[in-house]
């Protein structure tokens, strides 16, 4: 299994190496961004308000609307 291999490889690298740590953070951020876009779009489709989505994400409704509002309009 590829995932097993990559995990072994990862374990072999010094975990204090900034290259490894920062690459992991960058990938994690990209993953979070995609998950957020997906779930915000899903919530909007189900009729959630920006206010409700903001509360669930722990950010203001303005912040979530600013980030995802235009994206949806252009897609829609």
């Amino acid at each position, binding site marked *: 299994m*590829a*995932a097993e291999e*990559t*995990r072994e*490889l*990862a374990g072999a*690298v010094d*975990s204090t190496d900034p290259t*490894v*740590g920062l*690459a*992991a953070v*960058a*990938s*994690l951020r*990209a*993953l979070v*961004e*995609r*998950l957020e*876009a*997906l779930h915000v*779009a*899903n919530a909007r489709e189900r009729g959630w308000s920006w206010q409700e989505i903001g509360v669930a994400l722990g950010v203001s409704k303005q912040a979530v609307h600013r980030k995802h509002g*235009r*994206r*949806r309009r*252009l*897609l829609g």
Partner: protein
Amino acid sequence: MFERFSDEGRAAVVAAQAEAAALHHGYIGTEHLLLGVLSTGAGARLMAEFGVEADPVREDVVRIVGRGTDDIDPAALATLGIDFDAVRERVERSFGPGALSRRGCGRGLLSRHIPFTARAKKALELTLREGIALGARELRAEHLVLGLLREGDGIAARILHTRGLSFDEVRARIAGRDAA
């Protein structure tokens, strides 16, 4: 403001957005505007007169600000104990195949709004001012170069300065065309 731009001037701004997206930069800076200018016919011709070409400029941009990452590297996530394949499998079970891909998230070029940096906004304002000062009927890609040089502190200005361009010289070159 963009209604005052010519088709080609507007194309330069649109291309700037594409450049920013391709470099995975989350903003449109003066450097992307410069690359946008270089993607237009008239802009590229003007810049060629000063020995400025798109590819070397893009290399400079990458050297100065780097290339952003918008890519998920499963190996990097594995160092945190996160199995990306497992995450993707679960997400796709709920939202269908490809749900985690960039396109599936609506992160394609046109669907993603990329904001201008303060310097880029300033350069656009100065483009307008310089165009008016030259009596130009509409703002063309060439006028953007004047805005970028007038702004003076952005990465575009730095790149142009290191290539020996000065505001006065470029302005003189453009001025004749606007008078016609």
